[in-house]
C-alpha cells in the first residue's frame, strides 16, 4: 500500500515500486482505486478497464500488470459470484441500489476495493505459486488511509453476520498480516512530514503494518548556510569570479556585480530550505523506518522518469 499526502507522488512512487519489484521472472500488479486513471496517464496508455493488463516490463526484466478497480463493477461481480444475479444487477442499478452501496453505504466501497486487492494478492496459479509476486496499491491519501484499511473492522461490526461480514474479516486478516506493508510517501516539507508522522502513529495504533518512508522529490544540496554566509561576506570576490566567468564587469554597477545580490538571495533561500530539510530528515529518521530517497526529476514524472526512479529504488535495495 502506498499512501502519502495528496500530491506528494503516491501514484508515481507506486508505479516506480511496481517496476522495481518486477525482477527477472517475477510479476507485479499495480492497482489504483480512486478512479482517476493515474496509471494510464503515467504509462501513456488508454484508460484501464476493470481488468488486469500487462502494461510494462520492469528494469529487472519482470512483468508489470495494472488494474483500475471500479467499486461498482466489483460489487456487480461479487453479487454475480455469490448470488448468480443475472439481469437483476441492472435493475438494482436503476433504482439506485448500486450507487447507494458504492458511494453512500458506510464503508462498502472500501471493503470492495480492499477485497479485490487482497483477492489478487492471494490468487494462486495451478502450480500453486502466487500469480503475483507483489501487489502494489496506489492507495488513498494519509488522511483517509487508516479509515480506508480499517473499514473492514468497522463494517464487520456494522454488518454483524453474512458474507460481507465474513469477507470484511478475511480482508482485515490479510491487511494486518506481515504480508502487507503500508508505505508512506513524503516530501521534505512541513505538512507532508507532519502527516507522515501522524499517519504512522495512527496506523501503528490500529495495528496495521507500516513499511517504509519514500522521501520524494529530493534536490541536491549545492550551498549550505555556512557557504552562503561566506559568500555574503565576500561579495567583491564573487563579483570578480562572475566577471572572470564572462558575465560582465565586476565593478560597481557592472553586469556581474549586479548579479551578486539576486544570486545571493536565491542561494540564501536554497540554504534555508536545506536547513529545514535537515530538520525534517531527522524527524523522519525518528520514525525508525527504512527510508528511500527519490530525486526530483527536472522534467516531471513522465514514463522515462518513472523508470529512472525505479532504478534508484533498485540501487537502494528496495527489491531485496
Amino acid at each position, binding site marked *: 500500500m502506498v499512501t502519502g499526502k495528496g500530491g506528494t507522488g503516491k501514484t508515481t512512487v507506486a508505479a516506480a515500486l511496481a517496476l522495481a519489484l518486477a525482477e527477472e521472472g517475477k510479476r507485479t500488479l499495480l492497482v489504483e482505486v480512486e478512479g482517476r486513471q493515474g496509471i494510464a496517464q503515467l504509462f501513456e496508455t488508454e484508460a484501464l478497464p476493470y481488468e488486469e493488463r500487462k502494461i510494462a516490463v520492469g528494469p529487472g526484466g519482470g512483468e508489470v500488470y495494472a488494474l483500475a478497480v471500479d467499486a461498482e463493477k466489483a460489487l456487480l461481480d461479487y453479487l454475480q459470484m455469490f448470488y448468480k444475479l443475472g439481469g437483476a444487477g441492472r435493475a438494482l442499478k436503476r433504482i439506485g441500489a448500486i450507487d447507494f452501496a458504492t458511494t453512500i*453505504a458506510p464503508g462498502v466501497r472500501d471493503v470492495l476495493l480492499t477485497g479485490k486487492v487482497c483477492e489478487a494478492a492471494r490468487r494462486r496459479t495451478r502450480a500453486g505459486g502466487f500469480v503475483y509476486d507483489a501487489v502494489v496499491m496506489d492507495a488513498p491519501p494519509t488522511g483517509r488511509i487508516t479509515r480506508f484499511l480499517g473499514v473492514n473492522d468497522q463494517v464487520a461490526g*456494522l454488518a454483524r453476520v453474512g458474507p460481507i461480514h465474513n469477507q470484511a474479516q478475511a480482508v482485515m486478516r490479510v491487511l494486518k498480516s506481515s504480508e502487507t506493508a503500508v508505505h508512506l510517501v513524503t516530501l521534505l516539507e512541513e505538512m507532508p512530514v507532519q502527516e507522515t508522522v501522524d499517519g504512522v502513529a495512527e496506523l501503528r495504533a490500529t495495528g496495521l503494518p507500516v513499511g517504509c518512508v519514500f522521501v520524494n522529490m529530493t534536490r541536491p544540496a549545492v550551498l549550505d548556510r555556512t557557504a552562503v554566509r561566506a559568500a555574503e561576506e565576500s561579495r567583491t570576490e564573487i563579483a570578480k569570479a562572475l566577471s572572470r566567468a564572462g558575465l560582465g564587469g565586476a565593478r560597481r554597477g557592472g553586469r556581474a556585480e549586479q548579479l551578486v545580490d539576486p544570486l545571493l538571495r536565491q542561494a540564501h533561500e536554497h540554504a534555508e530550505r536545506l536547513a529545514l530539510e535537515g530538520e525534517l530528515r531527522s524527524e523522519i529518521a525518528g520514525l525508525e523506518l527504512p527510508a528511500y530517497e527519490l530525486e526530483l526529476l527536472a522534467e516531471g514524472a513522465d514514463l522515462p522518469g518513472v523508470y529512472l526512479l525505479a532504478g534508484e529504488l533498485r540501487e537502494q535495495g528496495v527489491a531485496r
Partner: protein
Amino acid sequence: MTARAAEAGTAQAHGLGTFPVLDVDALVDDPGTRIVVCCGAGGVGKTTTAAALGVRAAERGRKVVVLTIDPARRLAQSMGLTELDNTPRRVKGVDGASGGELHAMMLDMKRTFDEIVEAHADPERARAILENPFYQSLSAGFAGTQEYMAMEKLGQLRADDEWDLIVVDTPPSRSALDFLDAPKRLGSFLDGRFIRLLTAPAKVGGRAGLKFVNLGVSGLSVFTGLLNKLLGTGLLRDMQTFVAAMDTMFGGFRTRADATYRLLQAPGTAFLVVAAPERDALREAAYFVERLAADRMPLAGLVLNRMHGSEAAHLSAERALAAAENLEEGDVVDQPTGKGGDGRSAPRSASGSGSGSDAHSGDGSGTDADSDELTEDSTASPTTAERLAAGMLRLHAERMHVLARERRTRDRFAALHPEVPVAEVAALPGDVHDLDGLRAIGGRLAEQPGVEPA
C-alpha cells in the same frame, strides 16, 4: 458581475500566452462579492489561499468569515483555532484600521450533522437518531458527508447575514469536484425513494412501487432478502430505525443541498480555482473550469500558486551553467566525494559544507580568500569565491529551468482557456503558518503585473 469586477481590464502578454489578469483586490473590495470558494486538487494551497484572502479582505475593511476545512496545525493555531468547533472566532492580530474584521472557524462535520438533526427533530427523536449506529458511521464522514456539511455550513453562514464576505475552503476530496457532487448525492440518497424502498418495503410497496422498481413481483423481497444476507440483518435494522426516526426530516436534505447549489450559482459568489503550475495539476484545473462553466458557477479566476521567479531572469540557464563550468574547471583536488550518510550522492555539488567551512575559516583573517584570488593561473584549482559563485550559478540555472517549465505549463492552460483570469503567487521560501505569511501571500495574490494598486 462579481467575476467581471475581478478582471483587470488589460490582457497581459507573457511570452507566448495572452491571458487576462485576476484582480483580487477588486474582487474582495466589491460589496457585491459575498462568497469566495477556493477549490482545487489536494495540497495546492486552497486552505492557505482562503485564509490569506480572508486576512486581506478584512484588512481592507470587510467583515469576513473564513470557513476552513483542514488547516495545518500551526496555521490553525496562528488564527486562534485550537480545536474543531463550529462557531466563528475573531482572529486577533488582524489590522482593523479600515473597519474590517476577520473571523475563522474550522468545520466539525459531525457536529454540523448533529445540529441539523437537533434542529429538526424533537429531543427524544433526536437522541434516537444520534445514537443510531448507522447514523454514527454516516455522520463520522463516509463518502460525501464532509462535503455536504461544508456546504450546509456555508448555507447557514450566508443565512445569518452577519458577514460581508464568506471565504470557503473546500475539503481534500478524492476528486476536486466532489464538493459539487457529493451534497446532492447524499441529499438525494437521504430523501430518495431508495432508502424508503430499502427500509420500508411494506409501506411504499403495492403494485405501483414494484412496477416502478421494475424488479418483478417477488423482486423487491428477493432484493431486501439479499441485502439482509449481504449486510447482515443488524445493519438493515439499524437503517430502518434510522429512517423511521428521520421521517420528519426527509425532504429537507435534498432541498437544502439544492439551495446551497443555487447559492453557489448566485452572482455574489466567486470561485477561485487554485492550482500548482504543473502539468497534472493544470489538467485537473482545466477540467474543473469546464465543469464550473457547465454548471453555471461563476468563476473569478485561476490562482497559480507557488510559482517561481528570479530577479536575475535575464541570465539564462544555459549561460549560467556554462559560466559555472568555467569557474569549476580544474576542480580536481577538492571534488566532494558525494557519498553522504544517506547513500545518495549530490554529484553536482560544487561546494558542500566542506568547502563552505573552508571559506568560513578563511574569512577570520580575510587573507586566505585574498591570496587565493591573486592566483591568476587559470589551470589551478578554483578559489573559494569561484566555487561559491559556481554554486550560485548552478542554483540559478536550476531556478531558470523550473521557471521556464512553469511558464510553459501556464501558457498551455491559457491557450486552452484564454477567458480565465490568472493570478500568480510566488512560492515563499518556507511554509505559511502565521498571519505575516498569510499577509505576504495575500499581497502576492493582489499584486499582479498590470493590476494598479487600489
